[in-house]
């Protein structure tokens, strides 16, 4: 009895073969020819060919059946949830010393990972001098420098105090700061007020016009905005979402965000401070970047809620101090992972060039960490002109960020990509594996203090930070030995 008829009763893969082909492209042919589906991976050695790092990465891959893999998977899902649900609302403007946790009368907060006076770059030193003059700690720039040099100022990263500041990011005790409340989780974040473009403290300028403006911030702009916001809080989740659909990416382009903010706050301003409203509105109108610091504080409030989840490989901060680029990761506690900061690629104002540029500086990369800024470049094609690119390049930048992120923002969507949510929750594992690094829109500061912004452009996070973070996470989860 011959059994020549065909039997199809045998199955291993109940839904048919759905294969991922990692390597030889020819292996996809028989699968496709026999009714299976196959996705080709254009494989490259992970972690730039470092086998040990590649293995550590594999051991940290999600896996519900494995202690470390399950922990990482769960923690990251929670991080994505918290970032997605983050609901930042601007509720007040208050004096830094009164609201920023851990701020003493001798504290100066600065941008980026920890750094002391000796190693600070020109613009940051200039801003420190300006702040010391503003606070009355010193009468002359020389005195201020000496003060900083002998350790009489307590320097600390903004990020370690729920605060973010663009460029030098210097926040001194008497400065007014925006108070943003994350209504999803109750935490608060802070940022100083944006001074405008040009010779400003955040670029290391400290002449009398700079200090005069900052005094006006403390006496008028801050208190007036604070009163208005207390009477009419501004929903920053909503405002950022709208601005993204109006051509902003809410980092290096803030025209729409600033306009929307003025529209939102104007009635309350007029109501609560009729005498000063015109001057305040005039100032905001004259500064296209006024919304930047709100955007940054909103992102910080959102990301801080996702920090400290044991096992999570999600990046919760990217920041630069003008010397080093540093990141913090949800599952590695307070540690910073740093690498040398590079000079951004960009366009310069007339008379300046790359030789004048300070290496990357500022906390504003918190926007990219949150999935806007460079990550939402497809929503703001005008930005890409800074590097001579086209709207197609802008879309490509955003697309490539999906490779290194775990979430799609439910709040912030990109019309040109079919209204997909922006790429959010950067996963250290994905960065190390793919060698795709976060893209960051940025202003460029002159390397000498006090000259100010000399251009703008695009930069990327150095790979080394992410490899170091992965290493630390692996050690913390006890998977290092396995490699």
């Amino acid at each position, binding site marked *: *009895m011959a059994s020549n008829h*065909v039997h199809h*009763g*045998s199955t291993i*893969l109940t839904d048919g073969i759905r294969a991922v*082909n990692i390597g*030889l492209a020819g292996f996809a042919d028989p699968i496709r020819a026999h009714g299976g589906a196959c996705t080709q991976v254009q494989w490259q050695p992970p972690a730039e060919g470092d086998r040990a790092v590649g293995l550590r990465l594999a051991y940290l891959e999600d*896996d519900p059946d494995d202690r470390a893999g399950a922990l990482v998977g769960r923690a990251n899902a929670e991080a994505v949830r918290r970032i997605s649900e983050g609901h930042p609302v601007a509720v007040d403007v208050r004096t830094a010393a009164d609201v920023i946790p851990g701020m003493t009368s001798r504290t100066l907060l600065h941008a980026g990972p920890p750094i002391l006076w000796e190693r600070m770059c020109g613009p940051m030193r200039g801003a420190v001098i300006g702040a010391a003059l503003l606070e009355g700690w010193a009468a002359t720039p020389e005195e201020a420098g000496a003060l900083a040099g002998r350790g009489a100022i307590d320097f600390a990263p903004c990020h370690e105090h729920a605060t973010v500041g663009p460029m030098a990011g210097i926040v001194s005790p008497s400065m007014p700061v925006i108070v943003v409340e994350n209504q999803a989780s109750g935490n608060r974040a802070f940022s100083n007020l944006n001074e405008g473009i040009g010779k400003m403290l955040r670029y290391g300028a400290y002449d009398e016009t700079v200090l005069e403006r900052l005094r006006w911030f403390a006496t008028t702009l801050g208190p007036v905005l604070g009163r208005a916001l207390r009477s009419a809080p501004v929903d920053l989740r909503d405002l950022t979402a709208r601005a993204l659909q109006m051509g902003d990416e809410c980092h290096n382009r803030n025209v729409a965000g600033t306009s929307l903010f003025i529209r939102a706050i104007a009635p309350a301003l007029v109501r609560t401070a009729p005498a000063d409203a015109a001057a305040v509105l005039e100032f905001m109108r004259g500064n296209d970047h006024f919304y930047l610091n709100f955007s940054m504080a909103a992102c910080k409030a959102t990301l801080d809620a996702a920090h400290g989840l044991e096992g999570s490989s999600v990046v919760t901060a990217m920041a630069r101090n003008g010397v080093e680029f540093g990141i913090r990761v949800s599952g590695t506690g307070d540690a910073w992972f740093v690498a040398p900061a590079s000079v951004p690629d960009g366009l310069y104002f007339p008379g300046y060039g790359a030789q004048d540029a300070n290496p990357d500086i500022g906390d504003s990369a918190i926007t990219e960490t949150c999935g806007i800024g460079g990550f939402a470049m497809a929503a703001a094609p005008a930005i890409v002109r800074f590097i001579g690119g086209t709207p197609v390049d802008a879309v490509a930048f955003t697309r490539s960020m999906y490779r290194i992120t775990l979430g799609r923002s439910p709040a912030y969507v990109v019309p040109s990509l079919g*209204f997909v949510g922006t790429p959010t929750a950067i996963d250290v594992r994905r960065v190390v594996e793919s060698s795709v690094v976060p893209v960051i829109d940025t202003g460029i500061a002159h390397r000498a203090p006090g000259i100010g912004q000399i251009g703008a452009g695009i930069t990327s996070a150095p790979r080394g930070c992410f490899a170091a973070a992965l290493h630390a996470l692996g050690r913390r989860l006890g998977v290092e030995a396995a490699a």
Partner: protein
Amino acid sequence: MAGIVRQRVFKNTYRDSVELMRIATEVEHLPGITRAGIVMGTEANREVLAQAGLLPAEAAATRASDLIVAVAAESEEAGTAALERAAAALSGPARPDRGAEAAVPATTLHDALAEMPDANLALVSTPGTYATAEALKALKRGLHVFLFSDNVPVADEVALKDLAERKGLLLMGPDCGTAILDGVPLGFANVVRRGQIGLVGASGTGLQQVSCLIDRLGEGVSQVIGVGGRDLDERVAGRMTLAALRRLAADGGTAVIVVISKPPAPAVAERVMAAVRECPKPVVVNFLGWAGDGTAASASTFEDAALDAVARLRGVGRDTLALGTPERHEQSCVKPRLAPGQAEIRGLYCGGSLAGEAKLVLRRALGDRSAERVTVIDLGDDEYTVGRPHPMIDPRLRNQWIVDAGRDPKVAVILLDVVLGYNAHPDPAAALVPAIDHARREARTAGRDLVVVASVCGTPGDPQNLQRQQATLTGCGVWLAPSNAEAARLTASVLTGAAGVMPEHSSGASRPSPGDHAGNRHGV
């Protein structure tokens, strides 16, 4: 008209009004929906909804940043379905839509899984240094793994197989050349008809030979599961062989199982045999050259394994089965004129396991004489493939060896394997012809005959087509055998002077069981 109004509020979700109108239109066109409105929750918008009859008195309060979806429906089901559709549309695509720009290719498993979230199998053929990490990630993500890469440390292999075992997944490899899962060929596999014989094997070309011979005998395979060349050595201890055996034992589509390997370490052989004895289905054990332990059907060659498996499946005696006679050229009937001193056999193989089988059969056929007369070389061995493609893909290295053998006055027979199937050379027989012609011409010029014997491991369904390959070879005077074992026996018969009777022996229909007296049959 009696209808219902249903609402859902999405807190803190902003979308542009044009986008909301588009989604509302889409929802309004759903069956059973009379009206739909999707708006931000401002007072003005609530008023619009109210006027449209879409805002019941009891509707929850909203803020300007909240998004309201409201539908008037003919039924509860239609209303619920419409709200679900709106929610899906609002959540947007999972991935950015493909624009006019070139699609970004996946460069990692993670990327690929974003494109194909329901993937169930990963094929890994990266350099061995990186293969462990790729296989590990795939297993952790719940995929079966076909691990073609070699040079994977044995400790990694053990760890990967333990993980696969815990997860109920197959880890086929490392150094796994072939598999057929659910009728789909993987790697270097032949197009074999589907049937009821399940194969588990540590040998790539062994699996190919057995599956092709099963096809030739009119049967087919349920699954062909490669386990990697080291699976049955002491360190790996048959982990995946045993797992595959259990899987096939439980598989409703498998009636007979064949296990194929080099002879394993004794302790491992005992573990496998214990599993075989417990298996509720007939299992043919084919440890190449192994006589068996008397407890289960043991086939010592691939040919034996195929014949035994088909005989078990059909419930017939093996002597009723025939592998069939490939076409032979006239020349093959002519007894070769061997010059004095022409007494050696040169086996030039691309399949390592086929080379092993040929050595075994030649040793049995020629006894003590084989040692000095037989040289069988596996040109696919690492020793020969450093820095160049495998001879199954690139014929140049073997062709050079064929030409060299033709110049060697001691060589009487060149024995070859020709392996078909996916990813092998697109026309391997034709690629051999120039070298064979060259070698035979030089030998003839020097006044001697040179016999070339070959078998083709393939099926009519293979991309290269079995019949076409066989015709090419007979066309240039090659003596063809239906199996590699038979080719080896034919080769031996040239030395023993029995080659002239070959045509009678070519019909497998009346011959005794192969394997047991192979040496005598052609030698006497």
